[in-house]
């Protein structure tokens, strides 16, 4: 059973009371919230997510609720609670849904250290994964959103989970889009489902795109890393894919990892294995269709 199968009233009822239990990649998440924008965002973007049984094990217990003070009524705010403890300061109520997404990312990066976690989008084709690490503003999420609307499978738009045996475990949660990229993706793929925008967040205007149904149907299929590509959007740039030295790629990937240092020598060995298995590139682009064509021609390292 998936979330779409629940009547809207039933979905809201679960969120408000016992909590909505769903599988998000390898994790089971329980979400509680009486906030309408949270229910609305979940109904829209999580429609294809499988429900988890009421008597099963839950990895993350999360709750989005107004703080217990005046900010419940005056300039209302929202708190993200993980097992009753708020790891962050409250945000304006209008940002409740993005806060759920950021909070769920925090759950993974804080409580799933068994993975080597890299701050990178990751997409798959024919069992081969392309890891797209990049600092915010480089157009990583935009490129990821475009690719998953053109035949690549979404594994994750923010968190690349590398298991100790070197395979990538899909997370397949909504893709975050910021500022100009929201309209770029709307124009690029008019059928993409993008939720209501939240303005004036720490990252500017934010919206999320529903992961393609295929990403959810195949969420249990892991992938082997095949490419590490550092995307860079530059207005008016010509599309360019340039090979990149592996040692430098290793260092950059370690810098983009959330928990590389925690893994010590094992982390070094694992990252070495990933980088050795991948063809590494820098990629500059300004036109999404050209980018799609370049990616279509990628071949795994022999």
């Amino acid at each position, binding site marked *: 059973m998936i979330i779409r199968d629940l009547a809207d009233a039933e979905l809201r009822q679960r969120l408000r009371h016992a909590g909505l239990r769903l599988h998000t990649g*390898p994790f*089971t998440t329980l979400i509680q919230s009486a906030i309408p924008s949270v229910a609305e965002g979940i109904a829209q973007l999580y429609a294809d997510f499988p429900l988890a049984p009421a*008597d*099963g*094990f*839950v*990895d993350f*217990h999360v709750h989005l609720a107004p703080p217990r003070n005046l900010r419940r009524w005056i300039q209302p705010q929202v708190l993200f609670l993980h*097992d*009753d403890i708020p790891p962050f300061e409250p945000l304006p109520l209008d940002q409740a849904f993005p806060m759920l997404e950021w909070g769920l990312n925090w759950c993974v990066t804080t*409580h*799933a*250290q*068994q993975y080597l976690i890299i701050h990178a989008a990751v997409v798959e084709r024919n069992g081969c994964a392309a890891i797209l690490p990049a600092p915010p503003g480089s157009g990583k999420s935009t490129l990821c959103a475009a690719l998953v609307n053109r035949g690549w499978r979404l594994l994750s738009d923010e968190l690349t989970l590398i298991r100790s045996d070197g395979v990538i475990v899909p997370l397949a949660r909504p893709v975050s889009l910021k500022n100009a990229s929201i309209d770029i993706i709307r124009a690029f793929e008019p059928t993409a489902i993008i939720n209501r925008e939240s303005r004036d967040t720490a990252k500017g205007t934010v919206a999320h795109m529903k992961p393609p149904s295929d990403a959810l149907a195949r969420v249990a299929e892991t992938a082997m890393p095949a490419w590490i590509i550092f995307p860079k959007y530059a207005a008016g740039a010509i599309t360019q894919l340039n090979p990149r030295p592996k040692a430098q790629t290793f260092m950059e990937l370690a810098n983009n990892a959330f*928990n590389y*240092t*925690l*893994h*010590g020598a094992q982390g070094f060995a694992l990252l070495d294995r990933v980088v050795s298995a991948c063809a590494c590139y820098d990629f500059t682009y300004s036109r999404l269709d050209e980018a799609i064509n370049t990616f279509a021609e990628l071949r795994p390292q022999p």
Partner: protein
Amino acid sequence: MKTSVNDMTAKALRDPASVLALSATQLDLLIRQARASMLLPRLGSRLQASACLAQLPAAVRAHFESTQVIARKQNQALHWEINRIQAALMGAVSEVILLKGAAYVMADLPAAHGRFFSDVDLLVAKAHLGAAEAALMLGGWISAHHDAYDQRYYRDWMHELPPMQHLTRQTVLDLHHTILPETARLHPDPQKLIAAAVSLPGHAGLKVLAPVDMLLHSATHLFHEGEFDKGLRDLSDLDILLRHFSGLDPDFWRKLSARAMELDLARPLFYALRYTTRILQTPVPPEALQEVSRHSPNRFTLRLMDTLYSRAFRPHHASCQDWLARPALLLLFIRSHWLKMPFPLLVRHLFHKAFISPKDAQI
């Protein structure tokens, strides 16, 4: 004394195999309670040692693996920190004694397995305090407290210098010259502890307290403590130390109570044995319990302490708390200050903290 029916963490520590009979929702609660008590990695190593871990569902195991990654890293980082401290102090002081977590790790005691660490606690003779502080400052550790009152509070009244933080690694160390504040009601003689300390093979100049003293220090620390977010973890440390040391030395229990008398620490030992046996079923021989029961407080105080400590040693998780939990923790907090300073000094200290420190902070 009532132990909380919902406290699954203490039960899992007492009997790791019992975890295998838990349902998925019970395992879910156990993980959350153990995490809130900072005991997730310890429970993981217990389950591994008793060959139960592999029999748990993969999703549950993943949480233990995750926390083990952090605990392993902290253990490794602590070794490096001690290495740096040793290098900084070499030449300045002839010996430094590691306390608590740092001692468990460097002496490779079972209490170090799957334990989280925060700061490093060191003990040096009071005569060497200045030299040790200067050497650590040259090594990059600086005092985090600049306020003149705080400096006086620590230097004149406490048992340690203001916490020192390393400039680049941000690690924190506490340099002690004794184990209880100078102003406290009990007066264990630090010279006796220092004289009995044992060398760490392979680490010149580093020592740890002798087994009985290590136990008494951890007990004294816990039963003078005012904050219990790690209460059950610290009680579990005592449980592990007691089991370990009594297994090594058949004469341990007799030495322990004799030393407690000698150091003026019989009361904290009484509490340590009372609550480790009650909550974690530590196997303490009846004669040893009998011996320390002479140092019990009166019946009414004991009833009160049972009520308070039974709350403090529960996981700090909503599933284990009752209406008494908050007042109990508040009373224990007040008690810890009461034990730390004579009443007039306490009034003066609280007055300063409430009215003068905030005003200074504004300027």
